[in-house]
């Protein structure tokens, strides 16, 4: 099976935020939660770069390691998913995550966090594929329909790549060779403990 990864080519990202909007719309993500966001580093200075970031579906995911109720699981495609039925909203994954991916709808008083929500790589959750229950909790299951994540599919500059890690790394390498520069595969060292030579 493929090892699914995200790769944001920061030298192509124009910070249009279409990935953010597409994600929210596709999955009917609740108010206040953004599964994906675009962060601009060195804003307004020379060398400014924008990076689209979401859950990176880490190898040896820290969220899964610290979850006190084991609600996380990794699919055959190496996508890190979680069960909202098991999640108790303790916030531990959110302390451990290097990318700030887990978010909680605010329910009730104090800080009572609701069930955690994060990027699913458009792969739904533990429910049967492409059912109403799955859509309600996790959004569309595009992977089950043979499609890749929508954020990357509709990226206007093809900055954001999603798919088999080896294939997207190859595409990125070819680009870097051709244009002669790169600011790196953002998040790869943290998520996968590897980087793409540039």
């Amino acid at each position, binding site marked *: 099976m493929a090892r699914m990864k995200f790769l944001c080519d920061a030298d192509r990202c124009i910070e249009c935020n279409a990935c953010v909007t597409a994600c929210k719309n596709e999955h009917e993500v609740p108010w206040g939660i953004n599964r994906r966001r675009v*962060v601009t580093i060195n804003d307004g200075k020379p060398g400014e770069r924008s990076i689209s970031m979401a859950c990176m579906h880490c190898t040896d995911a820290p969220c899964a390691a610290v979850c*006190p109720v084991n609600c996380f699981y990794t699919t055959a495609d190496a996508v890190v998913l979680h069960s909202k039925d098991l999640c108790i909203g*303790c916030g531990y994954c*959110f302390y451990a995550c*290097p990318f*700030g991916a887990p978010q909680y709808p605010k329910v009730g008083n104090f800080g009572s966090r609701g069930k955690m929500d994060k990027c699913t790589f458009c792969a739904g959750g533990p429910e049967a594929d492409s059912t109403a229950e799955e859509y309600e909790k996790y959004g569309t299951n595009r992977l089950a329909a043979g499609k890749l994540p929508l954020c990357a599919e509709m990226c206007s500059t093809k900055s954001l790549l999603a798919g088999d890690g080896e294939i997207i790394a190859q595409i990125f390498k070819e680009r870097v060779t051709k244009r002669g*520069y790169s600011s790196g595969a*953002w998040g790869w060292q943290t998520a996968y403990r590897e980087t793409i030579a540039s």
Partner: protein
Amino acid sequence: MAGFLAQARFIIAAFVVALILALAVPAGAQQPSTVNPNAAAVKEQQLLNALQGGTIGGRVSIPDQKSGTLIQPGGRDWRQFHEVTLRWIGAIAILGMLVLLVVFYLVRGQVKLESGYSGRRIVRFNGFERFVHWMTATCFIILAVSGLNITFGKPLLMPLIGEPAFAGWSQWAKYAHNYLSFPFAIGVFIIFLVWIGGNIPNKVDVEWTKRGGGIVGHDHPPAYRFNAGQKMIYWIVVIGGTAVAITGYLLMFPFYGTGIQGMQLAQTVHAIIAVLFVAAMLGHIYIGTIGMEGAFEAMGEGTVDVNWAKEHHALWLAQENARTGPNESQRQPMATPAE
């Protein structure tokens, strides 16, 4: 005439433009064939090296400004703490204390009331004091069990009852932990106020500690209302309770006080103090129940036998007698013979 001048002006202008372009093109051609617009750009590796485990962030255009943090590798250290270090600290502190208490009980046995029950009682804790004690104690036990469940439940309890049942129980345990923190914190605060008077360390405590407190040997060093051991428990409850309450509320109200890194630190402090607190309270529960004859009555019924007071809190008994006079009217019929 005017038309000709305008035409001439246009032709001259066109020549000037052509000249500028002709000069500019060779200049441009002398630049390197590949331009690196990335020369001044930020690279992930540089930032990761420079920040050494801090965070990399920038500007986001969505309203949630917290999402401006791009990468924060600090969670790895916290993960190591939570999954490995904390479990060792917790296991050593709690199991170590249990082993210590069992060994102590087997070697030393119960601290007996050596002069036996006199049948005369003296009030030690009034109703309000006992209410506050038991409110705090009940909350503490539930907080301790639900807290330990978060750390030790996954390896110990989940394999026994299965994931769905464990998640259901943990959900309720989390609610209990969050809500009962309020009566617990209030209880700790009232405990601080009502017993502060008797818990300031003094010279008597030094003497009491030197003589082993009567726990290690069979001595009965004098003490006022609270001996050095009890003062220690008092300060553990007040300081430890305040620390777990503050760090706990930082976690319960995310981003009100700290960011993610502050929360990692708060959780670390919260967990370490909590497991040590549990270990200390096991000692407190031991000496208040099976560890010492006649001790539980103090917090159970609120009164103690005068002989118990004489053996363990002689100076306090003297103070009480001086205040009220030896009170023979408190003599009560004994359910069991005193001798």
